[in-house]
């Protein structure tokens, strides 16, 4: 057995030391809520495929206070994911040109907000009124 005991600098709570790191961890943490919600949807699909009684049981489960609380937090996480996604997307995709000029990042971010607003409204319309 080795008697060597190298010093390893403790890194616990490193992300609390800078607002940029906190926002980074917040952004990455949205993945946990996204994953849990996707599993909730998957369970819903399993229940849907098992018939009406099973599906109604899933709907009832969504009515528990804990479920509603989770979904309120998950909604915040999904919106935060969207905001950060729209901010990063223009930086990771190839530059876009319009009339020979590079489209500025701010315009691409705004365009995504408009597109998201339109898609949200269309989805809400289809779900609620059709």
């Amino acid at each position, binding site marked *: 057995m080795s008697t060597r005991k190298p010093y390893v600098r403790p890194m616990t709570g490193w992300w609390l030391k800078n607002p940029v790191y906190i926002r980074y961890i917040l952004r*990455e943490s949205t993945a946990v809520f996204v994953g849990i919600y996707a599993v909730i949807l998957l369970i819903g699909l399993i229940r849907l495929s098992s018939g009406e009684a099973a599906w109604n049981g899933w709907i009832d489960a969504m009515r528990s206070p804990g479920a509603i609380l989770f979904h309120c937090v998950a909604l915040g996480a999904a919106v935060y994911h969207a905001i950060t996604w729209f901010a990063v997307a223009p930086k990771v995709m190839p530059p876009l040109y319009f009339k020979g000029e590079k489209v500025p990042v701010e315009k691409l971010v705004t365009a995504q907000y408009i597109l998201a607003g339109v898609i949200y409204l269309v989805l809400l319309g289809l779900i609620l009124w059709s």
Partner: protein
Amino acid sequence: MHKRSNEPIVWSLFGAGGVVVAYSMPVFILITGIAVPMGIVSADVLAYDRLAGFAAGWFGKLFLLVIISLPLWQSVHRIFLSLHDFGITGGEVFFRVVLYGAALWGTLLPLYLLIGM
């Protein structure tokens, strides 16, 4: 022979999932998790006949597969890359198998269920 990385495939699923989450998930969470359970909108919106009918058509099947599977890939990829940030530095193979395995399961199971609906 040069070993090819599976990173492009995983990243593509992550990217597609991120887009799906950003452009649609807030609406779904609002409807299934808040508005219908709290009675803000009628439960008829998520009535069995309506959803089962939707899942019976090919467009509905594709739609449901996309909104369940792709967010899972987005989620597990992000969680995998964040493990290091929380001091979890070992067990890379284990976490790869568990996380990406879960996403694969979350793709094949809905695919199987939807085909039979």
